[in-house]
């Protein structure tokens, strides 16, 4: 594959103008990537898997459904993951990929690679992505871009410098349900009216948040662990809980959803105020529960967005993002079961929208019953419930990967290139500092720009 990119550069001053001004930032966040690959020599794309752990497997399983990919090499420091990944690839394509422990050796040895899929621990995202971009590969890198904002900045600079494509794994940006909701329901038919509040959460049970155990027989040589930045095998398996290796739950789980806040609103927040604690997992370096409030100025007015990530409780509706407007609330989630749309009783009727297929009516809302446990005059009429007209029929990561490979072929624009991902992720890097200092942070150019 051969491609060139048409990358626009934004300096810090121009970025400030775009990021903190509501209208222009809306253009920045809402606009698709301007990167576009040029014509390809061949339709087949040679892919290197950089990291083949749990997330690498999720991505590979999604990529198996995408035609025209040849998995040429696998790089992972863990024999167990690398050999397992190679077996999966061989079963899929009938050809064994080349195996590497060290990415530098892989990039120096392998010829003809077109793209790299980076799904290593967060603190390796930036170095690995930069190396691959500088080596002339297009990169799909899992979110969070990096464990540090400077690491994320390096990725944007490397994308600009190399002229290659760099898609960040905020897969909701390519999800048909999310794209339809933003284009047709929020912006097109403006069913929410004025969005005034956002509420998002990812609540996960203690049982799903335990340390990951490992079979000692499969442990990595301590010298190899040290070489690649891990003090021991426990840290290798549980890097998400260490401050030097990851951003913790707010980055691990929250980044996907706070990205949706920024994408849907089309602006960046003005400030963040967060609180967190080691309430249950007291030995962990990262907070196990975090709550954050972002303030936005949008063309329609102010918006407050509350987000919580809990690793100690699953109740409360799972994970979703809720856009709460004067006329409707859209609860959207990667899980269809958590997605619902509620029309305020005072909003214009949606019968026409239902008739034209924009929405599906759910079971009628129950009338508010006379009750002795509520003061009737304070009660609002129950909103009517509606649903999206359709669903996604693919694994959730597949459309985002399809978008990446179509861009590599020169047939599409990236839905979330590194620059747009950075703009959306930058505020998230300041949640933990706000919680640690117990102070709100008002964003400036230095906080949010490359």
């Amino acid at each position, binding site marked *: 594959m051969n491609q060139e990119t048409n990358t626009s550069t934004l300096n810090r001053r121009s970025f400030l103008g775009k990021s903190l001004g509501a209208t222009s930032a809306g253009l920045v966040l809402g606009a698709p990537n301007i990167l576009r690959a040029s014509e390809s020599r061949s339709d087949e794309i040679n892919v290197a898997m950089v990291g083949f752990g749990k997330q690498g497997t999720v991505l590979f399983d999604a990529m198996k459904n995408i035609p025209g990919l040849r998995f040429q090499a696998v790089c992972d420091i863990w024999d167990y993951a690398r050999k397992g990944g190679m077996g999966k690839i061989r079963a899929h394509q009938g050809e064994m990929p080349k195996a590497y422990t060290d990415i530098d050796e892989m990039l120096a040895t392998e010829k003809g690679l077109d793209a790299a899929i980076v799904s290593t621990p967060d603190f390796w995202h930036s170095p690995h992505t930069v190396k691959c971009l500088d080596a002339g590969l297009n990169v799909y890198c899992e979110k969070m871009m990096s464990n540090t904002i400077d690491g994320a900045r390096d990725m944007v600079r490397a994308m600009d410098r190399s002229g290659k494509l760099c898609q960040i794994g905020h897969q909701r940006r390519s999800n*048909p*349900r999310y*794209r*339809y909701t933003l*284009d*047709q329901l929020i912006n097109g038919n403006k069913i929410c009216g004025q969005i005034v509040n956002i509420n998002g959460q990812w609540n996960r049970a203690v049982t799903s948040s335990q340390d990951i155990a490992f079979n000692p027989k499969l442990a990595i040589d301590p010298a190899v662990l040290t070489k690649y930045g891990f003090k021991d095998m426990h840290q290798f398996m549980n890097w998400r809980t260490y401050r030097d290796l990851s951003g913790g739950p707010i980055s691990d789980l929250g980044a996907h959803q706070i990205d949706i806040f920024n994408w849907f609103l089309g602006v960046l927040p003005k400030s963040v105020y967060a609180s967190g604690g080691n309430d249950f997992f007291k030995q962990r370096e990262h907070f196990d529960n975090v709550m954050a409030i972002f303030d936005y100025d949008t063309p329609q007015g102010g918006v407050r967005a509350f987000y919580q990530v809990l690793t100690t409780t699953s109740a409360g509706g799972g994970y979703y993002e809720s856009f709460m407007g004067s006329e409707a609330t859209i609860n959207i989630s990667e899980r*269809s079961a958590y997605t619902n749309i509620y029309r305020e009783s005072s909003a214009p009727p949606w019968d026409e929208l239902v008739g*034209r*297929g*924009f929405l599906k009516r759910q079971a009628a809302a129950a009338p508010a019953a006379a009750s002795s446990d509520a003061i009737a005059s304070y009660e609002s009429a129950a909103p009517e419930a509606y649903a*999206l*007209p*359709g*669903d*996604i*029929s*693919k694994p959730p990561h597949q*459309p985002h990967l399809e978008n990446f490979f179509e861009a590599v072929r020169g047939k599409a624009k990236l839905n979330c290139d590194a620059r747009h991902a950075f703009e959306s992720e930058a505020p998230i890097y300041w949640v933990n500092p706000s919680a640690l200092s117990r102070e709100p942070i008002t964003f400036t150019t230095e906080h949010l720009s490359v």
Partner: protein
Amino acid sequence: MTADTSNQPQQTLALVYAALLIRLWLAVRAIQTGIEKFAGTKAATDVVSIDGQPNEYGLTAGGSVKFYSSENYHGVPEALMGKFKAEPLMLKWALPVYDMILGPLLLALGINILIGLASRTSLFLLGLLYISLTWGLILIKQDEGVSWLGVHMILIGMALALSQYNRFTVLKKW
């Protein structure tokens, strides 16, 4: 003293019905479980129309649709296979064999019980099969599944105990 046999025909009819219902339940349970081993899902392809046109986002009428094919066959669900492989008491050579025969065996025994072909022996073999499943579930600590299989075993015991009232059979022997 002589037994009162005035209501014996009614009692016999009730026991015949009981035997038939238990036999049907066990047959349906085995057959459908065997069929489900061939079930899989594929992506839905019905694109939703909005304003009379297929939507450009790729929204489909459903996330996935269920279908049956021999290519889908898994005797032991993939999710459990890894757990069984990790068990030191599990015979590694036996697992692939068991995976291969479980579905067909359930279907064959279920059909035998349904049509009444060597009902007692078929019920006995089905009981042995359920014992083997129970043993596997004990290994991986699936206590709920063990309890359900225990209920199945009670029903098999009842069906065998009522075998003298078993009617509508293809082969009564065995």
